[in-house]
């Protein structure tokens, strides 16, 4: 009978997958993710892709907010930069789509670090307000640029000269199907990168800054350098999310990247769990599925009870607000903590104290 997790060597304690069950769980999850696109219909595939993109951006934000403790209300703006860079490069410069994505990441990282400069002097809510201003300024710059409020159309993706929409292998194909692989490979890469980041010197410095920045500085962490690095890393990942979103949707519109988007991603990491990579993924699943479920209820009620169906959009916003409030009041550490509690309960049963 287990009474907890105890390691006898340092190597075991520092390993990424610390228990055999963990390894099996990851293998099962990967098998599930590989089978999923072959058995699901177009709608669930679209949802899965949305979850994947949301998870990428949420992990990006979590690097900055959850791990480094710098609150950012500018995720929408940074994602917009990734999306527009990728879209413009593909539409006007004729650069192949797969090359635009790393470009977009780098540009977003640079812009992110520029807006990260005030973080040396500002912390807490002052920084949050500064990033809010960054969001508004980026949005204004996009709307007043030659692009204006019109949607930017991204040329359809081609692989080996065939358009992705037409490419079919053994009956499977379509834009959602192919993007599923792109999105989930990227998400896998981002997860591996982030999880490992916090086992390195840089990641440890981020966490030290979050826990107590003055103490970190005293211990030799160069605050300015590491805060900027955190902004850059976080924006890089957020830009990746934006660029993939642009290529996937085929059209970029600023309305997708307003302050509401920034709030959405903050909600994802709050509900998932601040400072937790797996939490970001749980949060993304939760926050994408809840409105989708409400929409489906609305559609089901649409014929029988149109009065109630009319209220669904408002209910969606109310539920969004209410979930944030309830999570913060009752489980501030989010879904990741709930999942950990459930696991501990079973691991330690029947002596769960």
């Amino acid at each position: 009978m287990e009474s907890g997790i105890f390691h006898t060597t340092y190597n075991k304690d520092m390993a990424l997958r610390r228990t055999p069950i963990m390894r099996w769980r990851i293998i099962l999850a990967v098998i599930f993710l590989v089978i999923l696109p072959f058995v699901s219909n177009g709608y669930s595939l679209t949802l899965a892709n949305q979850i994947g993109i949301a998870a990428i951006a949420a992990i990006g934000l979590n690097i900055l907010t959850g791990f480094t403790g710098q609150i950012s209300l500018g995720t929408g703006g940074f994602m917009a930069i990734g999306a527009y860079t990728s879209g413009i490069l593909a539409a006007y410069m004729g650069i192949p789509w797969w090359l635009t994505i790393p470009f977009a990441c780098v540009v977003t990282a640079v812009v992110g670090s520029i807006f990260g400069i005030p973080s040396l002097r500002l912390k807490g809510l002052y920084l949050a307000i500064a990033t809010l201003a960054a969001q508004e300024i980026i949005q204004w710059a996009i709307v007043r640029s030659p692009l204006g409020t019109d949607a930017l159309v991204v040329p359809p993706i081609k692989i080996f000269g065939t358009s992705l929409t037409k490419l079919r292998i053994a009956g499977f194909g379509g834009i959602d199907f192919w993007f599923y692989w792109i999105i989930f490979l990227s998400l896998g890469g981002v997860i591996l990168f982030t999880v490992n980041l916090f086992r390195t010197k840089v990641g440890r410095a981020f966490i030290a800054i979050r826990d107590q920045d003055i103490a970190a500085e005293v211990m030799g962490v160069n605050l300015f350098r590491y805060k900027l690095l955190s902004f850059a890393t976080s924006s890089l990942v957020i830009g990746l999310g934006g660029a993939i979103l642009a290529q996937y949707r085929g059209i970029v519109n600023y309305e997708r990247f307003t302050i509401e988007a920034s709030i959405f991603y903050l909600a994802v990491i709050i509900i998932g769990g601040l400072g937790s990579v797996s939490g970001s993924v749980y949060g993304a699943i939760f926050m994408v599925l809840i409105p989708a479920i409400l929409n489906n209820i609305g559609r089901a009620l649409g014929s029988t009870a149109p009065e109630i169906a009319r209220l669904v959009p408002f209910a969606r916003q109310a539920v969004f607000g209410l979930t944030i409030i309830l999570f913060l009041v009752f489980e501030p550490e989010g879904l990741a903590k709930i999942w950990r509690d459930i696991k501990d309960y079973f691991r330690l049963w029947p002596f769960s104290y």
Partner: protein
Amino acid sequence: MDKFIQLTLTGLTNGAIFALVALGFVLIYKASDVINFAQGDFLLVGAYITYGLIVQVGLPWSVSLLLALIVAVALGIVVERFVLRPMIGEPIISVIMVTIGLSSLLRAIVTSFWGTMGRQFPKFLPTQPVEIAGATVPADRLIAMGVVAVLLVIFSVFFRRSREGIAMRATADDQQAALSMGISVQKIFAMAWSIAAVTAVLAGIIVANITELSFFAISAIGLHVFPVVILGGLDSIPGAIIGGVIIGLLQTFVAGYTPSQLALSSVIPFIVLIIILMVKPYGLFGEERIERV
């Protein structure tokens, strides 16, 4: 020159409204260190409830105004008790997010009743133009400015002279010291929130009265209050007033003198915000806080 005077007057009224909204904001921050992202949504609640009572229920405007203020007080107390009190001692991001969640909830409630379409607000203030130094201003704008000025004076007197006002300042200064002097900090928090809700509801009604009942325009004021409070200093009441007037004037002058297709007036407060944060993070009148490990 006429244009200049005209813009100055418009800017002053806009600034007065900003000041009123910022006042509630500063009050909450001073008393409880909470930054309230739902301040703009309190404006919406006030404007739409008054609209509903006057137009849809058919009450006279004085009664409606009174009822709206009662709703504001109740809203402030309920929000403080059930949303903010569990957040005491939580990190800043939780506090920020909980008010954002509140904002989303309030918005959903308002839109589920009234939608997001612009509506004609029943103007109970006189609107005939008044001439001042060669420029004409609608009377309701002048009245709004007067109302705001009177409210601001009342608040300053309240904080300097009344028992509750002084207790509130004491709480803002040091919660533990206030507690040990027999001040009920919980009551002070509830009071701060209700006063903030009352100022916001009044501001909402005034805005709806001098322009129209527009969901987007009113909720945008909630965002524009950030440059105001940062410029003035988050914990300074005179700062809120002066910041409000400066941002109001700046926005109106920029809107009046730069090409309108740039829409520079909507972004200029945020550019000022960034500059202020870089140069003088605690604003013009804010108290500088020294941090210890």
